[in-house]
């Protein structure tokens, strides 16, 4: 049997098949079922979509905030970056504590000296 004869046999194969319209109707029904499953998920996505610019805006604001309020670097290599710079540190301390004046410090030293002298005298006795 030649190759052409095989071609002829297969090309003369025209079996009677069920209606193409029935086939397409069945297919359309099943495609409808697939679409119904797809559509809710698409709706959910479109519901989220209006919030996306808001989410992006909030994220950008947080990023900008972190950038602006990032603690400046310290001059001391041994000091961790999270500590504020020296000048800021003093400013912060002055806000929470009151330092003694020069006179108060001199008086405190003189008092300590007198106490030391008295203690030495007691020891000699």
């Amino acid at each position, binding site marked *: *049997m030649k*190759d052409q004869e*095989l*071609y002829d*046999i*297969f*090309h003369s*194969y*025209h*079996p*009677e*098949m*069920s209606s*193409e319209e029935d*086939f*397409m109707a*069945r*297919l*359309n029904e*099943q*495609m409808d079922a*697939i*679409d119904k499953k797809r559509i809710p998920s698409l709706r959910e996505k479109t519901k989220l979509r209006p919030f996306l610019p808001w989410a992006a805006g909030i994220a950008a604001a947080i990023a900008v905030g972190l950038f602006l309020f990032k603690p400046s670097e310290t001059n001391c290599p041994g000091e961790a970056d999270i500590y504020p710079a020296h000048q800021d540190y003093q400013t912060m301390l002055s806000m929470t504590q009151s330092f003694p004046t020069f006179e108060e410090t001199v008086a405190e030293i003189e008092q300590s000296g007198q106490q030391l002298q008295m203690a030495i005298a007691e020891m000699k006795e």
Partner: protein
Amino acid sequence: MNREQFTFLVRKELPGLRRFLLAACSGNGQEADDIAQEALLKAYTASAGFEDESGFSRWLYRIACNCLADHQRKDSVRAGTLNIEKAYSISSASHSDETFDYQDLYRAIDGLTPGERTAVLLFYMEDRPIREIATIMNTSEGTVKASLSRGRSHLREKLKG
């Protein structure tokens, strides 16, 4: 690709695809149509990201061949030797005369391995080039040529006289 485009392309391919599957299923119209439906639904599900209309036919036949192979694998009767009686009994009564007309052809096709059957039908019935058949079957051109050669010998032996 939207549903309208998909349906339009399917309508063009449908007669050939159904005929191919009917021959591959040895005239079992119900089984052939079930495989065709399954393949088309798989294609439809994946069609959203498919834009290459010129390659639609190849793509669709590839899916159909995979579905056919799955069915043949699952069907333990088909995995063995010829069971043509079963196929004929399933065929509707209205097709019985015609099934008889193609009895020799179906018997010859049924004696082929799944790979030989697909290659022979795509080559002789669908007039597809070997390169395209290799793409559809996801194999090399050499394998397709070998399948065709074996299938041809088998068909010649079965159909002569």
